[in-house]
Each structure stands twice: as structure tokens, then as C-alpha cells.
């Protein structure tokens, strides 16, 4: 009987080893007082329970990690977009953050009404594409719905002019993604990637696929997909060789900290679990002509 019990325990032990769930990544955010701290949300504006939960979780996280701004990766509003919808799909879910003075900087997704560029809460200054900087980082916000020659010329010039240590781009449609529903927009990639590489963009935040994914650096640029701060497409990731980490089981958002030459990131689920985290070290600065 003892032998049988031993064999049984051994079998259970052997069988459960491959099934063991890896420990959740520990938070790596140092939360230094002088660093730039921000959050990233994508595909958020559903106005349903999950969006409110994420908003609440962000407010909770802010107590330990006082981020000063939130970048919005598009689809900031789904469905009807009347004045009252800005309340139920934006102002109320993030009320705690807004009242604490956190500024939201939006990019346009396919579900956003182009007129939303006028909404003050999105800080777009009436423009489809724009740039702003905080400390040693500059953000370049693009409208990926239509990459017209004017926008391409603008981003070319804006990146060329930038002397900032960190160059961060964000827009809605992903240049790289392993989401099954949408995946990478290769035509957009062909148009945009050469500029990102030429001017040494450090990282790109994207949405559209309702998942979280971090990709291995592509031609020196780190890509994140964070499109599940409201919508979620459970089990949508089809990992490829380019997948570094992913999470597609619950809503999530990102926390990011830039301290000198290091960028710390953490993807946080709706329930507060850190589902991915790490640090990116800045590459050697390139000259403005891309050499």
C-alpha cells in the first residue's frame, strides 16, 4: 500500500511539473521621484463594466506608482459618440485619475469619430497627429487610419527635429502583432517602419488587437500591443517567433517609467496581476539623419 501511495504521489508530481504556472512577474517599476511615469490604454471606450474595473485598477496602481499621464492607443470610444457618451465612456471610468490631474493624450482608432480630436479631455489640439514631450522623452502620436503623404512628411520632419533621448511613437493599428483577428498591418509597416528605424525610435505602442503582447525588437524597435483596456478577445494571440510575452485572458493596461537611459514597463491585468514586466535600455543615440 505504501509503495502504491509512493508511486501515486510520484506520478502526480511528474504530471504536474509541466503544468505548473510560472510565477507572475514581479513588479520592476522603481517609481523614482524624478522619473517620467505614464500609463498606456488601448481599445478602452466601451463604457461597460470591464472598462470601469480597469479605470479603478489604474487609480489603485497610481497610489504606488504616481503616473502623470495616460497615452490612449485608439478606439477611445465605441458606438455612439454624443456628449453624454464622453461622460459614460471616458470621464466616469477615469474620474479618479482625471480629478487627480492626470492628462490623457489620445490617438485615433477606427471606432473613434474624427471629430473627437476637438475634445479637450483627449489633448489632441484639434489634430489627427501631433507630438508632445515630457522630461527626456518625446511622444509622436499618429493617425494610422490613413497614412497620407502629409502625415508621412510630418512624422519624417518631426522625428528629424527631435533631440530627445527617448522617442516613443503610438497609434492604433499595429505594425507588428500576433493577434489572430487583425494581426500586423504590413502595408502600414512598409510605409512607416523605415522612418522609425532611420530616426532611432525606441519603442512603439499600438492597439487594435484586443490583447497584450510584447514583441522581440524588430530592427531595433520594441513594439507593444496593448488593446485590451476595455474590449478583450480572449485567446486571440497566436504566438510566433516574434512574440516575447503575451496575455489574452483578461483586460489589461500598461505602466511605464523612464529613468535616464532605462525604461521600465509593466503590463497589469484588471485584477492587478503583473502579467509582464521588464526593462529596456536606450540604444546609442543616432544622429538626426539616421546614420
Amino acid at each position: 500500500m505504501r509503495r502504491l501511495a509512493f508511486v501515486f504521489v510520484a506520478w502526480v508530481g511528474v504530471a504536474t511539473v509541466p503544468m505548473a504556472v510560472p510565477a507572475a512577474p514581479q513588479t520592476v517599476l522603481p517609481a523614482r521621484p524624478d522619473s517620467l511615469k505614464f500609463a498606456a490604454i488601448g481599445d478602452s471606450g466601451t463604457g461597460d463594466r470591464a472598462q470601469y474595473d480597469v479605470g479603478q485598477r489604474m487609480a489603485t496602481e497610481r497610489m504606488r506608482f504616481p503616473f502623470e499621464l495616460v497615452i490612449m492607443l485608439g478606439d477611445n470610444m465605441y458606438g455612439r459618440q454624443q456628449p453624454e457618451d464622453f461622460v459614460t465612456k471616458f470621464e466616469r471610468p477615469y474620474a479618479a485619475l482625471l480629478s487627480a490631474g492626470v492628462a490623457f493624450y489620445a490617438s485615433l482608432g477606427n471606432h473613434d469619430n474624427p471629430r473627437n480630436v476637438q475634445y479637450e479631455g483627449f489633448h489632441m489640439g484639434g489634430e489627427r497627429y501631433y507630438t508632445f514631450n515630457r522630461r527626456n522623452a518625446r511622444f509622436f502620436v499618429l493617425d494610422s487610419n490613413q497614412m497620407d503623404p502629409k502625415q508621412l512628411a510630418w512624422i519624417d520632419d518631426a522625428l528629424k527635429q527631435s533631440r530627445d533621448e527617448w522617442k516613443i511613437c503610438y497609434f492604433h493599428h499595429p505594425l507588428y502583432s500576433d493577434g489572430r483577428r487583425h494581426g500586423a498591418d504590413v502595408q502600414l509597416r512598409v510605409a512607416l517602419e523605415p522612418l522609425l528605424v532611420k530616426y532611432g525610435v525606441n519603442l512603439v505602442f499600438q492597439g487594435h488587437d484586443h490583447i497584450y503582447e510584447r514583441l522581440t525588437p524588430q530592427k531595433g524597435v520594441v513594439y507593444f500591443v496593448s488593446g485590451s483596456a476595455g474590449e478583450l478577445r480572449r485567446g486571440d494571440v497566436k504566438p510566433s517567433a516574434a512574440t516575447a510575452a503575451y496575455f489574452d485572458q483578461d483586460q489589461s493596461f500598461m505602466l511605464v517609467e523612464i529613468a535616464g537611459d532605462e525604461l521600465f514597463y509593466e503590463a497589469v491585468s484588471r485584477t492587478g496581476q503583473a502579467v509582464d514586466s521588464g526593462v529596456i535600455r536606450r540604444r546609442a543615440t543616432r544622429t538626426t539623419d539616421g546614420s
Partner: protein
Amino acid sequence: MSTRAATKATISRHSHRAPTRHHVRTSARWLARYLLDRYLLLPLGAAIALVWANSAAESYFLFASKLSFVVNEIGMAFFFALATQEIVEAVMPGGALHTWRRWGLAVVAATGGIVGSVAVYLAYVTLSYEAVLTTAWPIACAIDVAAAYYLLKGIMPRSAALPFALVVGIATDAFGILVVAPRYPTLAIHASGAVLLLMAIGLAAMLRAIGVRAFWPYLSICGTISWLAFFRAGLHPAFALVPIVPFLPHEPRRLDLFADPPDDDAIHHFEHEWHALVQVILFFFGIVNGGVLLRGFDTGSVAMIAAALVGRPVGILAAVGLALLAGLHLPRHLGWRELVVVALATSSGFTIALFFATGVVAIGPVRAQVTIGALATGAGLLLALGAARLLRVGRFG
């Protein structure tokens, strides 16, 4: 092997090769003629592009982006020049579309088709809350006139449906061109464009006045100035030859539209010489613009299909119905059954829709969605064929 044996073997190989090579050459010539005559090079190019884009996307889009300007902005100018030439000659006295009596009801039908297709497109994207897609509405207007013409000619040759469908198509596309031309996504608009355009038109009028019958001075001098004018004025340069072609010497077109013209007079030299070249341009046009990732099928694709296959036929039939109530008459031998087939035959936007897509929407997901829709409107031709069988129209009667 001895020298003699080697020579014998070589002769034997050659004697086998010669007829095979001849056979291959003849077959290739026949295939090329077949593809040219039936305007199949464009669908062939689009099919190649679709397969390429969905199997090696990066290399396809890289290739397409490099060729895009040459094909869309320069090459397509010759396509629209040829189309203008055909239309100008068809509406001249003695031409296939002469007399306004033939235009009246058809223009009403075209208006109905435009209203129907645009209304359905806008309603669909609005109800789907995807306002970014509204900019693509002019694409919903496009009719592939050549495809409709060939289909109807096959179903009911020598019917009044042919000129009726042609006018519907031409009027609709003319409206589309007027809307698309100024929406050309460009970097800057220069006022000098207007001056250049006036200069090009004035020069063409002068060449006509002094009796220049050769086509090349019109195209090489006036056409080049006009192209620069369009480009600088922020208008789609593919339409640059449209205001120049009417100044070319013309003769009424009694032959079939879209047929290879005779080469027996100076007037048709331009058309004859460019006919095959334009087909090759259309092949590359299909390759450059027909490649979309099929997983990009989304709201814009459905809206485009619904606009073309439902909105336009319903709009055409409703407009004709209202016109008849208002006192207009249907052309002889054209009843409601034939009208249904005509309405469905004009639902395909294909070539023109693909072109309009390049003119009004910049690269990105919006264009990808509507391009898939534009390609799928080709199904309208099958619907028309099915309707003709069902309603026993023309050769199915």
C-alpha cells in the same frame, strides 16, 4: 559518341523543338489576344496581387509602393485619355450615344444609382459607428463600364440596354471623377496649377485651330503641361489628359465602344497605338492596387459591397420608376426585366472603384477595407447573369 552521331542527335532535338516552339509562340499570341480583347489583364493582375499579398505581404507591399506613383499617377492618365476618347466620339453626331433623347432617362437612372449606393454606404458605416470610413464614399459611386458593357453585350446584343447602360456608367463615373479629382492626397497645393492648366487647354485649342491632326503634339506638349498643372493644383494627375483629349481631331464612333479601333486614319492612331499599352498599364494597375490582406475584410468592405450590389440597383430602379411616373418613357424594347439586369450589371465597380480608392483614401486600414469591397463588387456581374437567366432576358429568353 562520334561526331556524326552527335550531329544527328542535335538535328533530332532541333526538329522536335521547332514545332514545339512554334506551338508555344502561337498559343502565347492567342492567349495574349484573348486577354487583351476581353479586358482580362486587369483581373489577372489583381488576382496575382491578391495571392502575392496574402502569401508574402512585405515583399508585395514594398513592390507595390515603389511602382504605385508610376502606375497610378502617370500610367492611368492614358487609361482615362482612352476612355475620354471613346466617350467624346460616341456622343458626336452619328456616334453610338448621340442625341440627348438617349441620355434623359439614363441620367436619371445614374442619379438614382449614385444616391442609392452612397446612401447605403453612409448608412452602413454610420450605423456601425465607424465614421473614419465615411471619407471613402465616392468609391461607392464607381461603375466598371467596360465590364458592364461586355456582359450586357453577351446577354442582349443590339439591345437598347447597351447605350442605356453606357450612359448610366459614364454619367456615374463622370460624377465620381469630379468628386475624386480634388480629393487627391497631396503634400501641397499651388495656385500656379490653374495657370498651367489654362495654358495646356489654350495650346490644345490652338493646335486644333491650326489643323494639327497628329496626336502626339497634343499629348506630349499639352498633356505634359496639363499633368504638371493637375499635380500642382492638388488634382489627381491621372485625369490630366481628360481636358486635352476633346481637342484631338475626332470622327463619330459607329463601332463598338471598347473595341480595338481601326488603324486606317490619323485620328485613330492614338487609340490604336495606346490600346494595347493601356491594357498592360491596367495589368500593372491590378498588381499595384489589387493586393490586400483578406483578413482586412471589415465594416468598410461590407459597406462597399452593400452599396454596389444593393444600393445602386435599387436606386436605379427607383429613379426609373419615378421618372416614368413623371412622364418619361423607357426606350423601345427595354422593359423592367431588362432594366433589372442592367441595374445589376452596373453594380460592379472593380477597375474604377480600385482607382477611386487610390484617389480618395491614403494607404492604411481604411483603404484596405474598401479595396476588398471594391474587388468583391465584381460579383455584381454574376448576379446580373443569374438575373438574366431567371428573368429570361436576351439570349436566355
